[in-house]
């Protein structure tokens, strides 16, 4: 702005003007960006010197010692990979093998849809990348459409569809009074949305609330979405992590497939294979037939090419090595169940501790909710007190990452929560 004003005032002396611009930064007016609400929490945690500090912020799994975990099946896969393969570019659509195995997880091991080649699928940069690719695809091919996003949702969902320039609306989801699902309002929103709207659904282990529809509720949701001709897009970041059984966690998706929806799915291996930083995921879009799937896949590739050309090979190799080896796959399923079980155990422990302390509030929701997160119901002010007085780090929406809870800190955590809520 200052530069433009300077220009108009000095038309005569153009060289001096451009010289002046050359001397100052182009970026003076760039504002400092707000910290990412989720990732900023871990930054603050790391900076804290206190010995008691607890990180229940970012959704990355921790073992009972509070340590990050690399799955044994992953270590073994890496040993097999290292030194053996070259690092050539993958195709734009990524590792075919990895994608094949990944579709089986979501659509079913013996899915007819896979056999009929009706699914357009590409390797993506974990869940984020899959959602962004879909959002760009939606923008390009359904430019008049909008996306309905649940309230609340993972904060980055809003950023993704915004940067893809797809208009957003919200639908009711979380019911604060019951700390459960606001089912009636959700169905109303589905009915009231213009026909052919796009709906973002969390396939399992809703982030950040941990509140999932029951099977019956999913059937009703499917029915109403179908009646309105809406498009169902599933973000499945926690398959296996919710119940411990990947098949069970895919139930919502399978219901929609049975009902004949042509869905889209974003899958991530960040949590269920512990491959966070490897950025491995998959975007799939179910089409009418093989021809359409080929066309859609080619268009998805056209969107990936100007973003990163082709996806990273290492993480995809780990996934395909594990899933195509029956023994390693079995081992993986065991290790996923261990993680899920530990979290379920911590839910029980946290609720138990709070009740033992004689908390006047109901903490049922801790064990009713599922997956990595517990929507505690704590207010931002209470969260701030937890951080400032007790060195407990979580996002200000009261979301507790249960993965960060251990037998070593669950009592401390319960005490602190009790202190700020009594």
């Amino acid at each position, binding site marked *: 702005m200052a530069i433009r004003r300077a220009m108009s005032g000095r038309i005569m002396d153009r060289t001096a003007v451009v010289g002046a611009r050359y001397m100052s*930064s182009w970026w003076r007016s760039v504002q400092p960006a707000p910290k990412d609400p989720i990732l900023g929490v871990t930054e603050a945690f790391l900076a804290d010197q206190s010995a008691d500090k607890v990180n229940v912020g970012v959704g990355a799994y921790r073992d009972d010692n509070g340590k990050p975990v690399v799955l044994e099946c992953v270590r073994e896969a890496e040993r097999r990979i290292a030194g053996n393969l070259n*690092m050539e570019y993958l195709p734009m659509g990524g590792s075919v093998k990895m994608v094949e195995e990944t579709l089986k997880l979501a659509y079913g091991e013996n899915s007819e849809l896979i056999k009929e080649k009706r699914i357009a699928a590409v390797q993506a940069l974990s869940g984020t*990348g899959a959602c962004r690719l879909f959002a760009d695809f939606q923008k390009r091919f*359904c430019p008049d459409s909008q996306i309905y996003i649940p309230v609340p949702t993972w904060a980055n969902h809003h*950023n993704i569809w915004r940067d893809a320039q797809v208009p957003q609306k919200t639908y009711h989801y979380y019911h604060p009074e019951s700390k459960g699902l606001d089912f009636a309002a959700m169905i109303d929103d589905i009915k009231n949305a213009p026909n052919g709207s796009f709906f973002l659904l969390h396939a399992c282990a809703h982030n950040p609330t941990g509140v999932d529809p029951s099977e019956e509720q999913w059937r009703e949701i499917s029915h109403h979405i179908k009646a309105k001709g809406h498009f169902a897009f599933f973000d499945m970041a926690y398959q296996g992590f919710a119940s411990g059984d990947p098949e069970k966690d895919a139930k919502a998706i399978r219901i929609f497939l049975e009902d004949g929806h042509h869905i889209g799915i974003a899958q991530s291996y960040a949590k269920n294979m512990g491959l*966070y930083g490897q950025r491995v995921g998959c975007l799939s879009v179910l089409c009418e037939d093989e021809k359409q799937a080929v*066309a859609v896949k080619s268009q998805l590739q056209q969107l990936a090419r100007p973003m990163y050309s082709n996806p*990273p090979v290492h993480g995809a190799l780990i996934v395909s090595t594990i899933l195509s080896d029956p023994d390693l796959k079995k081992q993986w399923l065991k290790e996923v169940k261990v993680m899920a079980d530990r979290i379920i155990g911590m839910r029980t422990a946290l609720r138990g501790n709070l009740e033992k302390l004689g908390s006047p509030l109901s903490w049922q929701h801790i064990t009713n909710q599922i997956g990595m997160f517990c929507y505690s119901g704590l207010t931002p002010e209470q969260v701030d007190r937890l951080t400032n007085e007790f060195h407990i780090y979580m996002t200000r929406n009261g979301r507790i990452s249960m993965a960060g809870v251990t037998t070593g800190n669950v009592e401390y955590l319960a005490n602190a929560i009790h202190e700020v809520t009594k």
Partner: protein
Amino acid sequence: MDSVFASIVQAPEDPILGVTAAYNKDPSPNKLNLGVGAYRTEEGKPLVLNVVRKAEQLLVNDQSRVKEYLPILGLAEFNKLSAKLILGDDSPAIQENRVATAQCLSGTGSLRVGAEFLAKHYHQRTIYIPQPSWGNHVKVFTMAGLSVKNYRYYDPTTRGLNFQGLLEDLGAAPAGAIVLLHACAHNPTGVDPTVEQWEQIRQSMRSKGLLPFFDSAYQGFASGSLDVDAQPVRTFVADGGECFIAQSYAKNMGLYGERVGALSIVCKAADVASRVESQLKLVIRPMYSNPPIHGASIAMTILKNSDMYNEWKIELKAMADRIISMRKQLFDALSAKGTPGNWSHIIKQIGMFTFTGLNSDQVAFMTKEYHIYMTSDGISMAGLSSKTVPHLADAIHAAVTRCC
């Protein structure tokens, strides 16, 4: 239920990656893939550098390593070392904390993140790219929200640089416009400005307040020297002005599929760089949250260990030397055959690619009759070996004399 995407048509094959696809389908034993710019050994095999294998083993054997999310901007040490690599160890811009660096997905990712940042924060939405340029440049910048114009670059009559045209076009660009510069080993022509020409370009651009955006995909690969290949970037930074730099480790470290790269934004002041850095995060988070850890860890391991760094320089020079040797051999073969035309551009051009000057009919002829796979623009010299040079020379000779 009808699909909402029922009317979607199949996208055309990517012209560059489509070449390899066609090559793979060809059953001929004489087929030659001179398409995608990935290095090949004398035996025509992909190459993983020894030093890269070493780094890989160190990583896999290190039980303390975890797979946690990287920060949004990636590995901090990798970023510092990448900035040093392109700007020089003693760069004042680095010493003064004026460089904001983000680990990105190879060159493509670095370009895209930089372009989206520009579309958000810069007052000029037009980027000038050389004619011709890497095919994906237009798509990257357009998707990011910039509009693309061309400046003259390649002169088909000399098969060299159209320097006058370049200066005229940049001179006519609106003040503040963004200009894409290939730092070295221009893709696809192999034609680079001389040191003197770079100096004139720099002066002209700075006097017009044009913003340089360097694409550095071949540092060390062009001349064999990391420092020599970085000179154009360094002279721009030395004048104190601002610029963007997209770096790739795909070719010079052979890390292709691992997607290792970095975007550096050189700013006038440290506090500006810090704010710019914070805004880069907002571009990246909704794209892929944080970058992949594996490849950058390998690169960082090599960059920070002086023995490994020296090993790398030696292996890099060997790759560059082999390509230079292929150029010489092809030129000699065509001279020996008396192939009509002036082929000196083959040895004057630099880097992985050669703009042959052949037309698309001749290229189609070479594909059909000699099973040579190349883009209609040029040849990836990295795909040649001493054994296959004669076959290519035959094909070019035939195309020039018998066809079109």
